[in-house]
C-alpha cells in the first residue's frame, strides 16, 4: 500500500535577496529558486537552505502562524515568513528578506530577542482572588464570557515580537529599551489588568518604569500584528486611561491638557514625534553595509497610520486625546 507522493507543479522562478551576516557586518545575497504554486516566503527560504545555503540561519517552528518564530522584514514590512504568500508580493520582482531591525543580529535572519524575555520577567503576575463558596461547590471560578473576551483577545498573542520590532520608541531609540516594555508587554499588562480574577495593580509600574507614556499611539504595532490584536485601541489607550485615573486629580488633568494645547501646536507636535524626526541610525546599520528599509518608507497602511500623528508626545505625562 505504498503511499503516492504528491508533487507540486513548478511555476517559474523567484529571486530572493536575503541578508547574510552577523554583528560584525554583512550584505544582501541573491538566490534564484524554482517556485511552486501557493508557497509562502518560508518555503523558498527552506529551498535555499536545502539546495544552496545549508547554513542560512532563520528561526521557524510551526509554519502555520501559531508560534511566532519566523518574524522578518519582507520588502521592508515586518511580517511572518510562514504567513506571507509569494503570490501576494509584486510578481516578477525580487523579494527582499531582512532580519528584524530593532534587535541585535545573531546571524542572517536570526536576531537576539532576549530583550523581550527580560521584559516578560518584569510584569507582576496574576494574583487571583479566592473562590467563593458557590465556586468551591461548582468546582471552579465563575466568569462570564463577556468578561473574559477582552483578555482573551490579548492572549491570542503569539509573541512574534513584530510589534516590539516596529515600535519606533525603541526602533529608533536604542536607549529607550532600558525603561520601555513595548506593545507586547503593554498587552500583557492589559490582559492582567482586565483579567476578571486579578487583584494585582500594575499602574504605577507601567507609568514609572515601563514607559507607557512614551507610546504616542501611532498604531504601527496594531498594523503589523499577525493576530490582528487591536493593541493600541484595546490595550494601550485603556491602560493609559487607567494609569491617569490612578495618578491624577481629574481637575488638574484637564488643566494640564489645556496648557499643553496652548504650548504646542499640532504641527510642532508632528515634527517632534519620533516617527517624523531625524532617524537615529544605529551603528549596526552602517556595519551591515546596506541600510535596511524602514517600514514607514514602504507606503501602505503603516505609513498612513504615521502620517497623522496624534498630538501627544513621547515621555509626556498627559493622557492621550483619544
Amino acid at each position: 500500500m505504498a503511499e503516492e507522493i504528491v508533487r507540486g507543479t513548478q511555476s517559474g522562478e523567484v529571486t530572493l535577496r536575503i541578508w547574510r551576516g552577523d554583528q560584525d557586518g554583512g550584505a544582501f545575497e541573491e538566490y534564484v529558486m524554482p517556485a511552486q504554486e501557493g508557497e509562502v516566503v518560508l518555503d523558498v527560504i527552506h529551498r535555499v537552505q536545502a539546495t544552496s545555503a545549508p547554513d542560512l540561519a532563520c528561526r521557524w517552528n510551526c509554519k502555520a502562524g501559531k508560534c511566532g518564530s519566523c518574524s522578518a522584514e519582507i520588502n521592508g514590512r515586518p511580517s511572518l515568513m510562514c504567513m506571507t504568500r509569494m503570490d501576494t508580493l509584486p510578481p516578477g520582482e525580487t523579494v527582499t528578506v531582512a532580519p528584524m531591525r530593532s534587535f541585535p543580529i545573531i546571524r542572517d535572519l536570526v536576531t537576539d530577542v532576549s530583550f523581550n524575555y527580560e521584559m516578560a520577567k518584569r510584569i507582576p503576575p496574576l494574583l487571583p482572588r479566592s473562590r467563593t463558596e458557590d465556586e468551591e461547590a461548582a468546582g471552579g471560578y465563575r466568569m462570564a464570557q463577556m468578561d473574559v473576551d477582552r483578555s482573551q483577545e490579548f492572549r491570542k498573542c503569539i509573541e512574534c515580537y513584530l510589534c516590539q520590532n516596529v515600535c519606533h520608541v525603541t526602533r529608533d531609540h536604542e536607549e529607550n529599551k532600558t525603561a520601555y516594555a513595548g506593545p507586547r508587554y503593554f498587552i500583557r499588562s492589559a490582559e492582567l489588568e482586565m483579567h476578571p480574577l486579578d487583584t494585582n495593580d500594575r499602574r504605577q509600574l507601567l507609568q514609572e518604569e515601563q514607559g507607557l507614556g512614551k507610546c504616542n499611539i501611532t498604531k504601527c504595532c496594531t498594523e503589523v500584528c499577525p493576530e490582528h490584536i487591536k493593541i493600541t485601541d484595546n490595550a494601550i489607550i485603556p491602560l493609559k486611561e487607567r494609569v491617569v485615573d490612578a495618578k491624577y486629580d481629574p481637575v488638574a488633568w484637564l488643566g494640564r491638557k489645556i496648557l499643553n494645547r496652548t504650548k504646542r501646536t499640532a504641527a510642532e507636535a508632528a515634527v517632534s514625534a519620533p516617527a517624523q524626526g531625524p532617524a537615529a541610525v544605529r551603528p549596526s546599520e552602517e556595519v551591515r553595509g546596506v541600510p535596511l528599509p524602514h517600514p514607514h518608507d514602504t507606503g501602505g497602511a503603516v505609513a498612513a497610520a504615521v502620517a497623522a500623528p496624534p498630538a501627544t508626545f513621547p515621555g509626556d505625562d498627559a493622557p492621550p486625546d483619544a
Partner: protein
Amino acid sequence: MTEYETHDYDVVIIGAGGAGLRAAIESRAMGLRTALVCKSLLGKAHTVMAEGGVAAALGNVYAEDNWEVHFRDTMRGGKMLNNWRMAQLHAQESPDRVRELEQWGALFDRTADGLILQRDFGGHRYARLAHVGDRTGLEIIRTLQQKAVADGIDVFMECKVLRLLHDPDGAVSGVVGYWRPTGAFVVFQAKSVVLATGGVGKSWMYTSNSWESTGDGHAMALWAGADLIDMECIQFHPTGMVWPLSVRGLLVTEGVRGDGGVLRNSEGQRFMFDYIPPMFATETADSEDEADKWYDDHTAGRRPPELLPRDEVARSINAEVKAGRGSQHGGVFLDIASRRTPEDIRRRLPSMYHQFKELAGVDITAEAMEVGPTCHYIMGGVRVDADSAATTVAGLFAAGEVAGGMHGSNRLGGNSLSDLIVFGRRAGIGAGQFAAGRAGAVTVDRGQVEAAIDAALAPFEREAGENPYDIQSDLQETMQSLVGIIRTGSELEEALGRIEELEDRATNLAVGGDPRYNPGWNLATDLPSMLTVSRCTTLGALERKESRGGQTRNDYPQPDPELVKVNFVERIAHPDAAAPGTGGTPSVRSISVTPEPVPVMPEELQALFEEVH
C-alpha cells in the same frame, strides 16, 4: 579538545512544551535547583500548535461525565493496549490540573453560567474538552510559561541536547548539548533528568509536526539503555490540509467535526456511515438524521460517525481516496460551511478560518475544506512507571509525547494536552524525589562528553560528503511511502533496508560554514535521532502482526486478541558500545524487539467495560 561550560542542577528537564514546563514548575516548587533546557525559544514548542482542547471530566456541560467514563473512553480509543494505570491517573487528575491552569491565569471559554465550557471530540462520550476557540495549546503553553517565569525557573533556550551522560553505575548524571546561536558546547550535570522532548513526526513527509519533532528524547533514552514500547503506533490525524502543497499536513482541528463539520467524498456522500467498526456500532448513529440531532442533545440520537476515534476516520479517508472518490488534490471534503452560520464558524474556529483564508485562499464559511491524513503523534515511547514517570534507567524520567503507554495504540483528541499536565507534574515530583534522595556526588565522565562533541563536530571535518537535507528528505519519503498509515510486511522490510542505507550515508555527513546558528549542522545533529526512531517504528511495525489503532497491516487486517496483551519492547544490546563511524552513538543494529505483557487491569476497572456491553 573542545572546551565546554558546565552547569550544576538537581533536576534538568529537556523540552519546554507543556510537559517540560509543568515538570519544572513542580520540581521548582519542591525547592530543587531546576533547569529547563529547550531547542527553540521559550513558548514556541509544539504544544503551541494544539488546537481543539484539553480533555478533562469536569462535568460542566454534561453532569453525567466523570473520570470513569473518561478512563473507559481512553482505553477503548487506545484499543485496550494502554497502560491502565496511566489512563486511570490521567482521567482522575486532569480536572484538577485544568482548574489549576485557571488559577494561574488561563482563560478558557465559558458556559452560560460562567464555568469552563467543554466541546465534543472524537471518541469522548460527553463534551469534555476545555478550550479557547481553536487555540487551546497556545493558552496552555503561555499559562505555564508565565507561571515558570513568575517562579523564577532557569530557562536555557535554543540549546540542542545531544546525549545523556551516566555515572559508572549506570544512573543518569546529566546531558551534553550545544547552544544553537554560538555552537558552543555545554554540560548540565544533574541528579535526575526529565525527558519532555515531544514526538517524532518530522521523519514523515506530510506531518503536522514542526522541525523540532525529531525524536531526540526517544533516541537518547534508547541509546542510554532505556526501554521503548509500541513504537509502531503512530497516529495519522484524519484532517490535515492537502493543498497547496506548501501547507500539506498542516493540522485542521478535530473541533471542526466536534462543532458540526462533516466529511464528504467527491460524490457528496457522508461516507463515514460506511465505515463504522463493530466495536463502536452500538453508540454510533446510522443515519444522517440521527447524527444531526445529537449535536444539540446527546440523548436525542447517537454520535455521528465523523466523531469516531482518529484511527478509524483516518483509515476511512484513506480508503475513499484510494477508491477514486477523493478531492482534486488527493483528500476529501470537510464541510462546516453548510452546517453552521459564518458568525458561528468565525467565533468557534478563528484560527482555522484565518489559516485557510491566508494560506489556501479558501473561505471556510462558504466552501468545504480539502483534508487528508497527516502524521501527527506517536503513541509509543519511553516505557515509564505510571505513578512516578520513571524510565527503566535510574534517574531518567519521561513525560508527554515521549513517554509510551498512556494512549495505547491510538490517542483520543484532547488527551494529549491533559497528558502533558498530569504526567508533567508527576515527572516533576518523581525526578524531584529521586534527586533529593540521591546519595553521593554525581560525576560527569569527560570521555562521554568528548565522544558526543566529536561526533557532533565530525561533519565539519569532512571536505565532501552527504548533505543532511538530502538524507532527511530521503528518510521522509521512505517513511511516508512505506511506513505510513497502511503498512505491509514486504514494504516494511524494504523500509528497513532503506533506513540502513541512510544510516550508512549519515556516517559521512558534511556541512559547511561554522557552528554558529547553522541549520544544516543542526539538522546533521538531529539526524541520528530521526534515523533511530524511524528504525524503531519500522521494527515494531514488522513485529506487531495485526491491525490495532495506529498500526494498520494490510497483510494482517484484523486485531489479534493475543497481541492486545503485549507491548513490543525495543532496547539496545550494548548501550555503551559505540558503533563504528558514528563517533559515540551506540549501534542501533543491535536493537531487539521483545513482546512483554501489558500490565493487567484490576477487576474493579474491568467491570467498567462490562457494564456497557
